[in-house]
């Protein structure tokens, strides 16, 4: 059997096994330092869109909290830090883990860097792009317990109308996105995919009803 055909033969197995046990991601440190609470700092912004950090910040609480973690109130944390002489994400990211643990009592901190953000115009369509890298760090030990990416591109020319026939979930139909800001919706999707990724996302947290924390994979 050629390598290609072997690969093709394997693909369906891998695809259908997504619900069972695939663990390309090493969750050892994550399980050892399973956080109950996560402090999300406004992300560093390497993109040219000055709004990226705070649009992103408004889309991260729901996925992380629904995954089973306590998420500190993002806007209050931001305001609190600004009141204490830290005017922006750069300064906030330089605060020591020890200090963050002392002030917030956070078990882990989610550090995010936005790499690319906004609408890109190509010949006949526009793409809305969100690309960010993220890491979750245990505040007690400084150990990085998880790292991943929040990437999503929405193309104006590609519809996903077939998906529209799917049932709409109770939680999400509450959200009425009335903003004309395309990056807002794309950031939401990117963050959902990051947190819920079957193979590389967050482990179910202590408040997740479905499993004992961290034991589902």
């Amino acid at each position, binding site marked *: 059997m050629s390598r290609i055909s072997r690969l093709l033969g394997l693909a369906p197995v891998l695809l259908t096994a997504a619900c069972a046990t695939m663990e390309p991601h090493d969750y050892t440190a994550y399980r050892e330092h399973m956080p109950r609470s996560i402090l999300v700092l406004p992300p560093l912004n390497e993109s040219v869109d000055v709004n990226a950090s705070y649009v992103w910040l408004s889309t991260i609480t729901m996925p992380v909290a629904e995954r089973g973690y306590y998420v500190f109130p993002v806007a209050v944390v931001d305001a609190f830090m600004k009141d204490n002489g830290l005017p922006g994400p750069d300064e906030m990211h330089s605060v020591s883990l020890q200090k963050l643990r002392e002030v917030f009592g956070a078990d882990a901190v989610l550090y995010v860097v936005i790499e690319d953000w906004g609408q890109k115009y190509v010949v006949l369509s526009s793409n809305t792009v969100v690309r960010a890298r993220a890491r979750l760090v245990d505040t007690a030990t400084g150990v990085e317990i998880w790292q991943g990416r929040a990437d999503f591109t929405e193309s104006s020319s590609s519809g996903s109308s077939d998906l529209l026939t*799917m049932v709409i979930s109770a939680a999400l139909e509450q959200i009425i996105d009335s903003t004309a800001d395309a990056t807002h919706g794309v950031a939401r999707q990117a963050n959902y995919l990051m947190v819920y990724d079957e193979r590389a996302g967050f482990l179910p947290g202590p408040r997740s009803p479905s499993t004992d924390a961290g034991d589902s994979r």
Partner: protein
Amino acid sequence: MRPFAIFAVTAIAVLSSGCAQRTPLYRWGEYESLVYDMYMRPGKADPTTQIAKLNEDIERANAEGQRVPPGLHAHLGYLYYGQGQLDAAYEQFTIEKTLFPESTVFVDGVLARMKKQ
């Protein structure tokens, strides 16, 4: 397709791909939309408007027997604090701590600073 529709559809696909259907832990209401607005469209989310909307969310969640998401009561407490309504602020921060003991260190610190004023 509207961004919301795309988001909802994707989110469902993601949420339901965990093999078992799950119901949301919290009733989210306006909380995250208000966070967006306060940064991006502050005219739509002055403190008075936010306070009214968040209180409405809390009432609805209670009426429907659903949980209020983490951070919402603390966010509301912070708004009251900014308005000089310290009793209401104290009450909201205390509720946050009761519902989510994970917030104890932070809330106790905030309450201690409020008392000094």
